[in-house]
């Protein structure tokens, strides 16, 4: 495999990925530096959180702000890492094919002796660029800044959050990708990707603790919980494998859809 297309496309994603890493890194540092003042308020904050409905607590993964683990899990990982980065992956993937089909850029690639399957696979690989860069940079930044404020996180579980969230982000990417090979308008696929991931997130968070909790089982957010990993130190490998299997299914469907469609 020479991966010419993957390399060509990945190169174009490097700058954006670095910019995103810088932004998220700076935000992570800010969050971590806020912690000591929150910690001094201590038990009061947790009492306040206890007063919220369960679905709210679960949805935002807010359980305990009085520990660095609970605070970082909720403020940084549940919201920024899982929700926002999930939306970003769906959005980025949404643009890959639909945008290139809309602009007719894909013609110059498909005119060469490469198969459509290969094009899908390589473009998907290129989409991993931001994920790779962020997973290299953010854990280091977060760990270093918690050490700096003297509330160090357990690096093993911090790393676990990152490793286990990869399959989740891949599912978001797969959702965007499938929409992208289905629609011929870049905007439609991108906004569709964002809307789908966000609605699934809502479905998960509003049904928690209700009779309809099973409805949220279709949401990928149900199978990744940074609070559970960082605060309670529980790792559910089965959930991650399930997400990974769904990723492969979405990629397979994208290949099948792209193989036979008119461009």
């Amino acid at each position: 495999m020479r991966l010419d297309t993957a390399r060509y496309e990945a190169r174009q994603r490097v700058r954006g990925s670095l910019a995103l890493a810088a932004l998220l890194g700076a935000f992570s540092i800010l969050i971590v530096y806020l912690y000591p003042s929150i910690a001094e308020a201590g038990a009061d904050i947790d009492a306040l959180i206890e007063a919220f409905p369960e679905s709210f607590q679960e949805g935002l993964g807010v359980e305990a702000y009085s520990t660095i683990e609970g605070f970082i899990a909720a403020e940084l990982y549940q919201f920024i890492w899982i929700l926002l980065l999930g939306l970003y992956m769906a959005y980025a993937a949404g643009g890959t094919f639909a945008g290139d089909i809309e602009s007719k850029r894909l013609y110059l690639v498909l005119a060469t002796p490469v198969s459509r399957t290969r094009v899908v696979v390589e473009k998907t690989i290129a989409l991993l660029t931001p994920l790779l860069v962020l997973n290299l940079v953010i854990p280091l930044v977060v760990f270093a800044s918690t050490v700096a404020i003297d509330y160090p996180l357990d690096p093993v579980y911090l790393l676990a959050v990152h490793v286990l969230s990869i399959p989740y982000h891949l599912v978001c990417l797969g959702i965007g990708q499938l929409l992208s090979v289905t629609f011929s308008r870049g905007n439609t696929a991108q906004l569709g990707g964002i809307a789908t991931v966000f609605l699934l997130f809502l479905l998960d968070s509003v049904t928690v603790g209700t009779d309809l909790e099973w409805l949220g089982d279709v949401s990928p957010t149900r199978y990744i919980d940074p609070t559970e990993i960082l605060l309670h130190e529980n790792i559910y490998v089965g959930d991650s494998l399930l997400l990974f299997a769904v990723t492969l299914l979405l990629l397979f469907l994208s290949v099948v859809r792209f193989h036979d469609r008119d461009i």
Partner: protein
Amino acid sequence: MATIEVQGLTKAYGDTLANDDLEFSIERGEIFGYLGPNGSGKSTTIRQLMGFQSPTAGTATLFGADIRDQDALREVKSRIGFLPGEPAFNGSVTGEVFLDYQARLKGDSRRAELLELFTPPLERKIREYSTGNKQMLGLVQAFMHDPDLVIMDEPTSGLDPLKQEAFNRFLRRERDDGLTVFFSSHVLGEVRRVCDRVGIIREGRLVTVETVDDLLQRGGKRVRVHTDPPLTKADLGLGGVVDFEAEGRQAQFTFTGDYDELFEALSQHRIVDVEIDEPPIEEVFMHYYGGPQRTEERNDAA
């Protein structure tokens, strides 16, 4: 075996037949012009030939590979060069990076030679390119792997006249070396200058396939003349004057007769201004392939 063999190729988009039972073939070493007004279905044929879209019915073969069979078509694609209409590129890379990428996909044995003929600013990002520069970059990538067949959608659009002429010369030279060319155009003059044979498509149907010589005899010229005093059709008293229209001191008509006679007739009048041009392709259709409705409209207007 013909290089391109189109057999009953049909493409429907909903109720619209963009290509209707097309049938023609192109031999090795031939420049074939695919002529038709905008929206007549030229690009649809090209997209099917390249395997981007699959036919509703019928098929075509390139070097014997059936276009419905993606794997077979991929096998021969290294021998095919392609230029889409208004080629689109990723604007954030330089022309050089784009050509490097294309080179890895299909080769670039003739890149340096082509860059002497077509001169896009390779070191600049493609988003800064003019239409003409994009077209030249597209032409370089279409020919750089030394293909045996080149398929192009409106190849000279956006090129300045000098580059157009250079391109035509290049095309004829390559043809003499055995290259087969299939390209679309809506400009009759361009097709005339460079093609061996022409297929004319109108509203999805192939109206005729004929040699350029035959076409030349029918095409005629569009003549616009500004005289003082005004000119009438009777004043000219010439054969081969079609669609005569006058507006004030301006007259225009399509002329298919003898040029000497035309100039002799015109010399009897005081000519303020004269313009002799290729007829718009729509007129060729109207006169020679039927278009009663529009001709009547024109007569009414006149």
